[in-house]
């Protein structure tokens, strides 16, 4: 089970907006527990899809300057409907601000013209080396991995 909650990048406007798609499949193991008789994508993984999409917008805008991009806060995250296996969801993220170490966004997810999720959230981005110089090599490794993943998402 890989922890990657988007499958493809649809469009990107650096500094401004990104659209991505996730396809939901019964092959995703956690669906067996959520829920056994009614498999639907867990709400927090919808939020994770929005966060990952925004993280890519940051990475592209700052040219992979930072290795670690984490959720700093989320507010007014609303779940409006269920997303079942066999469906696809398109995430649209709009950047409010992207600064060196913090950024903020609004985002929503649509499936067959129905709103599934919407959220406001902020990310923080940094390199481990800023806390401990010895970790610079770890940063480099993460960034290399992220560049590979970016190619996958755009292939």
């Amino acid at each position, binding site marked *: 089970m890989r922890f990657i909650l988007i499958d493809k990048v649809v469009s990107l406007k650096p500094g401004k907006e990104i659209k991505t798609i996730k396809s939901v499949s019964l092959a995703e193991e956690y669906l067996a527990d959520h829920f056994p008789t009614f498999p639907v994508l867990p709400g927090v993984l919808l939020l994770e899809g929005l966060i990952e999409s925004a993280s890519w917008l940051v990475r592209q805008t700052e040219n992979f300057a930072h290795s670690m991009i984490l959720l700093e806060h989320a*507010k*007014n995250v*609303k779940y*409006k409907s269920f997303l079942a296996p066999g469906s696809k969801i398109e995430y649209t993220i709009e950047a409010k601000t992207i600064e060196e170490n913090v950024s903020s966004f609004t985002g929503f997810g649509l499936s067959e013209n129905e709103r599934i999720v919407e959220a*406001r959230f902020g990310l923080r981005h940094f390199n481990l080396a800023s806390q401990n110089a010895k970790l610079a090599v770890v940063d480099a490794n993460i960034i290399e991995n992220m560049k590979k993943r970016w190619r996958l998402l755009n292939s």
Partner: protein
Amino acid sequence: MAMSRDEIFKEVQDVLVDALGVDDDEVTTDASLMGDLGAESIDFLDIVFRLEKAFGIKIPREELFPAESLMNNPEFVSKGKFTEKGLTELRVKIPHTDISTFKNNPNVNKLGDLFTVGAIVKYVETKLNAA
């Protein structure tokens, strides 16, 4: 607790900004919760909880927003519009709303327009004065 209408408005404004993620300047007296501020049913519940906490009052749900049963009653709603009887019922059940414009075209799916920031402020004021 004697709060002025302005003080009540400020507190209601803060509640709506937090619950709906909108900006201060969008929360005007005439703004409707659903149409202008994007509130949905889960938000209404959130708003009720926050108002109870902010003002120390208890808000039975049908006092603020009318019960489903009102809308499903054929004496009050017919062919998608409120009847005269229905409008009277609204005046009794939700007196904090202003139906003077609504009554000219009382479409059931426009009912949401009645729930303005001003209506909430009026409701809270009434509750605090009764306490």
